[in-house]
């Protein structure tokens, strides 16, 4: 029972974590990515299509990654090159992509909302025989798919890249001091675009995890607001990949609990809204702490 829950919590954390790491990097580069949801949706659909066509989960993942990256690039170009407001562009991308996906399903496959082709190759779970029988730990680490491992590997990798590498420094500088970046001869807008492409690619993978990792078909509601939950996770995490991962884990846990608790104790609708409330609470707490620090700084 507890093992099944823990396993599900990790599974549900993966898409949120992937998109949140992308969104975190994007935000550090200077763009708040409201369009993650649309990139997730695009990735989820393409993954099912390619998987059913080729029978290869690997190709499907690659296609989802490329789809997310292309959507990210398009969104980024409108924001960086045409100085459009990132919030409205992100919302517009979410609306347009949701419409496009439905339009596509209707006009190409003649289905409304759900696409369930035969022969979808699922992402294989990676069993770890040595740990499989171990209580708790076995449920957490054994039987997860490659994208889950990738998501968790990205947490330390991103933390390291942001702090210790030249690219991390350039990215942080682009978000914090664009003029300086330009002054030393780098192209801040290109760096910013690259961060959105990265975010899009990860969101595309997140979509693939949902469609060919969890359910094995595509549904228009498959992303289920997880792009926005990812936004909540990286706001929760501020600029830290580790804290972002904690947020994603928390929200993934809610997601898993929500499926189990449906109809009991707490209504599912309220449980689904909880992550958003937590973000507001966290932001309030941070705001209070900042102000207190400011005050004591002034007195000292």
């Amino acid at each position, binding site marked *: 029972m507890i093992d099944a829950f823990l396993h599900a919590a990790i599974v549900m954390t993966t898409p949120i974590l992937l998109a949140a790491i992308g969104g975190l990097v994007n935000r550090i580069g200077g763009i708040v990515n409201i369009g993650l949801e649309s990139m997730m949706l695009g990735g989820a659909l393409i993954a099912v299509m390619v998987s059913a066509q080729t029978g290869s989960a690997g190709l499907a993942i690659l296609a989802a990654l490329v789809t997310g990256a292309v959507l990210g690039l398009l969104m980024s170009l409108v924001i960086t090159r045409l100085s459009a407001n990132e919030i*409205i562009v992100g*919302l*517009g991308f979410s609306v347009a992509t*949701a419409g496009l996906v439905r*339009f596509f399903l209707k006009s190409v496959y003649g289905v409304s909302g759900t696409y369930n082709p035969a022969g979808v190759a699922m992402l294989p779970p990676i069993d770890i025989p040595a740990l499989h029988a171990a209580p708790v730990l076995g449920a957490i680490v054994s039987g997860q798919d490659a994208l889950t491992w990738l998501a968790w590997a990205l947490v330390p990798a991103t933390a390291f890249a942001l702090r210790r590498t030249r690219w991390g420094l350039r990215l942080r500088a682009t978000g914090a001091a664009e003029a300086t970046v330009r002054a030393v001869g780098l192209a801040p807008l290109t760096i910013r675009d690259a961060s959105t492409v990265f975010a899009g690619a990860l969101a595309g993978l997140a979509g693939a995890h949902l469609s060919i990792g969890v359910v094995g078909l595509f549904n228009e509601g498959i992303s289920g607001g997880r792009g926005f939950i990812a*936004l*909540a996770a990286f706001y929760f995490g501020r600029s830290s990949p580790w804290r972002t991962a904690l947020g994603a884990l928390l929200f993934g846990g809610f997601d898993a609990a929500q499926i189990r608790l449906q109809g009991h104790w707490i209504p599912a609708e309220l449980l*689904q809204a909880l992550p958003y409330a937590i973000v507001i609470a966290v932001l309030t707490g941070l705001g209070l702490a900042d102000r207190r620090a400011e005050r004591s700084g002034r007195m000292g």
Partner: protein
Amino acid sequence: MMRALRPRVADGLGAAAPFVFALAIGAVVLFAAGFEPLSVYRLMIEEGFGGERRIAATLTASTPLLLTGLAAAIAFRSGVFNVGAEGCFYLGGLTAAVIGFSAPSWPSALVLGAGLGAAALIGGLWLLGPGLLRARLGVDEVVTTLMLNFIAVGITSWLVNGPLLARGSANSATPAIALNATLPRLLPPTTLHLGFAISLALVIAYGVWGRFTVGGFRSRLVGTNPRFARAVGIEPERVLVATMVVSGAVGGLAGAIHALGLVHRFVGGFSPGYGFTGIAIALLARNSALGVIVASILFGALSSAGASIQLFSNVPIEIVQILQGAVMVFATAKLGRLWRRAG
């Protein structure tokens, strides 16, 4: 005279450009799917504006957008990026619907006043929090208001699936409102209702307020130059909180008018994103009242035409969503740069 008009004309063209871009993208999508874009667009224009009934349908569809556009414009004008009208719309709609089915014996004016007033109150209170958080603690209002949308949708869908579910109804809907709580129709048999007139009047009132009153001037000053505003003795924080509350109240009112005028109950999925379309409308209109009216009618035509083109031409109705989304994407884009770069 002509010279004085020129910047206005340029402004108008600038605001039209996102529509042109969206139509171009829509044309590519339609063409790829094997439809003839031009004939689809011609059909959409006919369905949106051809004849009294169709115009009435367009105006009905533009009614919620007038107010969500207004809610956004009020906020943006003072530099408050409120994206929370969607949540207020849900809460306002539910509040009005509950009052609308609970007091069948009251006089109509009283129940309508109570429904609209309570919805505005709830909407305003809903955004008081983000207003205070931004003013006192500097918490980004984009994030808080965006998050509050999901919370409002969660709360209302819980209520409409549980405590407020109409007896005998399988899907999420409250009981229908009583006859005394419905906003009267303006042009029967069309669905155009008094809510359109109320919404239009409010947008016009906003235009007058913004242009001719001290309050309107102050609000714009806070938006354009908060430091100067502070220097001349305006407290930007106070304006900010008030703006957020008023914007939320208008969002709540929009939901109430939608419930009492058109839907006549509250249902799950009450808004197909009116609050977000309102953001695009305000940005396209650059917060001007006239712009809000024109953009609302265009978006209204789009959605009312979309419903009928699906009937007549088997073009999936989602083309409307694609066009709307594309307009949003380009709403604030400086499209002139495309040419400057090429040239």
